[in-house]
């Protein structure tokens, strides 16, 4: 397995830059997720790695070899397409064997590798079926086997779980990840679903408008988002407008949120994850503590989403863990203590309200 090295990649369609100066690396057996809203350029980036998109400028190296101008069939990437793109007129075996045949591998050697690949995705008994005779999940596994049988240098996945139903998504995602790790595949995968990315990726690359906004591990991005966009895109965040003061952040509603604001420019917004907003008596002793009215409660089973209205008019949502025997009773209209640690308060660049 190899490394992928992308430098200053640019793809323009007229005045519009689908990929705008992106540099990215993926090391051996690393799983990198490209994550972003639709139209952010993640799919264009993936397709240019596979060679389907002729790039405007920049360089793509696989295993130290420049493949930027190479035709797709000369790149030795293995791609799983969003709709699987199985050959409808060929059996599962022939689908999986196609890449081998194109490499001039036939006979017993091909049969052995096809059988191994199908075994890898637990479809050993399905070789003689046609794609339309398989379920969506099985088709997806055929697509994976077909891409892997040729020992690709880079494994590319385009929204691999999006056509599966919600129950399957988690288990198939974990199976894919186990496979990727056990084979040591350098993998790039595109998704718009943050859960998929958080669950599977070693490293997340968040894209927006053709550019990389932030990259890092799931924990890094979730706990230390670089901007409001990232904080909002990964999970949920309360956002409060106001101004930075030496003590912390003073909301427009007049609530003071103490936090480390040293050296912060004044034009930041404050974000606070709902799970970091603590409710009830435990909140009273926290450095940031206030009384608020419960405006609404949305019961979600394990948790409840509680929307609070602060005296100055600010609204905050808290995620409250529901436990049997919990003495804390929540009722709409009641006053309740709420609070958070200074470390939970994040002052971030506001890249959402500024024009993009």
């Amino acid at each position, binding site marked *: 397995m190899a490394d992928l090295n992308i430098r200053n990649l640019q793809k323009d369609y007229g005045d519009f830059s689908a990929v705008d100066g992106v540099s990215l690396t993926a090391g051996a057996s690393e799983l990198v997720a490209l994550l972003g809203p639709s139209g952010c350029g993640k799919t264009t980036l993936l397709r240019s790695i596979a060679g389907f998109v002729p790039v405007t400028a920049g360089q793509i190296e696989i295993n130290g070899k420049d493949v930027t101008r190479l035709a*797709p*069939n000369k790149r030795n990437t293995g791609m799983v*397409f969003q709709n699987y793109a199985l*050959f409808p*007129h060929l059996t599962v075996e022939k689908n999986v064997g196609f*890449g081998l045949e194109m*490499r001039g591998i036939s006979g017993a050697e091909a049969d052995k590798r096809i059988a191994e690949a199908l075994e890898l995705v637990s479809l050993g008994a399905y070789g003689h079926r046609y794609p339309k005779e398989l379920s969506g999940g099985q088709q997806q596994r055929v697509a994976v086997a*077909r891409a892997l049988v*040729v020992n690709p240098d880079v494994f590319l996945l385009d929204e691999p779980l999006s056509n599966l139903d919600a129950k399957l998504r988690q288990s198939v995602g974990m199976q894919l990840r186990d496979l990727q790790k056990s084979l040591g595949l350098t993998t790039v995968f595109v998704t718009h679903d943050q859960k998929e990315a958080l669950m599977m990726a070693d490293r997340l690359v968040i894209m927006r408008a053709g550019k990389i906004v932030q990259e890092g591990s799931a924990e890094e991005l979730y706990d230390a988002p670089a901007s409001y966009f990232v904080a909002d895109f990964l999970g949920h965040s309360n956002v409060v407008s106001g101004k930075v003061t030496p003590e912390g952040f003073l909301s427009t509603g007049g609530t003071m949120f103490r936090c480390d604001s040293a050296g912060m420019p004044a034009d930041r917004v404050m974000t606070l994850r709902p799970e970091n907003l603590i409710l009830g008596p435990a909140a009273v002793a926290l450095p940031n503590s206030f009384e608020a009215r419960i405006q609404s409660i949305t019961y979600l089973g394990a948790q409840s989403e509680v929307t609070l209205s602060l005296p100055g008019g600010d609204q905050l949502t808290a995620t409250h863990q529901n436990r049997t025997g919990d003495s804390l009773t929540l009722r709409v209209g009641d006053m309740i203590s709420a609070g958070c640690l200074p470390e939970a308060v994040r002052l971030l660049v506001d890249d959402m309200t500024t024009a993009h």
Partner: protein
Amino acid sequence: MTVSKINIRQIGAATGLLSPATLLVLGSLVLPMLILLRYSFNAYDPMLLMRETFTLENYVRFFAEPYFHTVILTTLAVALGATIGSIILGFPIAYFLARTQSRFKSFLVVLVIFPLLVGNVVRAAGWITLFGTRGVVNVTLMNLGIISQPIEIMYTDFAVVIGTLSVVLPFMILTLQGVIENVDFSIVDAALNLGASRYKAFTRIFLPMIMPGVLAGFVLIFILCMNAYATPYLLGGPGYKMMAPTLYNQISSVANWPFASALAFILMAVTVISTLLVTRLTTRRRR
């Protein structure tokens, strides 16, 4: 009780809605065909024209006279030539139309359909002015000194095949365009990704995928060609040996309805059999 009431009402509504079409088909297609079928077993009589009987002599005559072998073979050859020619000429245009992102796409499609707005006869008349002994092509070639005698283009097999091909080409292009537009091109991308050259991706993946659609186009156009009347008549001459003109000759010049009827059923049978044969041959390994 209520269920059966609804069912009766639904059946009533369905009958009401389906009857006009059914009556039309029965009255205008099935009934005349049954009459023709009966005619084909009647005998021709120079005095009476048609004598009620039950004989196979019309069918026997067709298979006995070599003239009619030429007619059916010419018909098959022209139809095959025009159909295959229209696939070869139509495919690149259909592919372009299906794949283009041009904003002029609908205009281009209209251009393809445009010849259909001009009737067969008008178009054939146009070909005559082009290809006649004193037509544009001959006059130009002679004035340029390339030929000294006009070449015979009119009333040749070539003229009939080209003429028929030009009539059916728009249908073929539209059929193929529909077929290609339905292709998921990520499947072709997958072939390239797996190491196939553009040529291999085309022959091994794309062509087999569109084959059923191409076959449908083939059958449709082949049937049109087999039954072509105006174009062979005008470009091949009144005595051109294709089935439809020959059949109509039997009615219009000799008033031999029984034999004409037999010709009609033979033409239909040959069309159906050759269509089935082609379908069978090209789909033998498909499921």
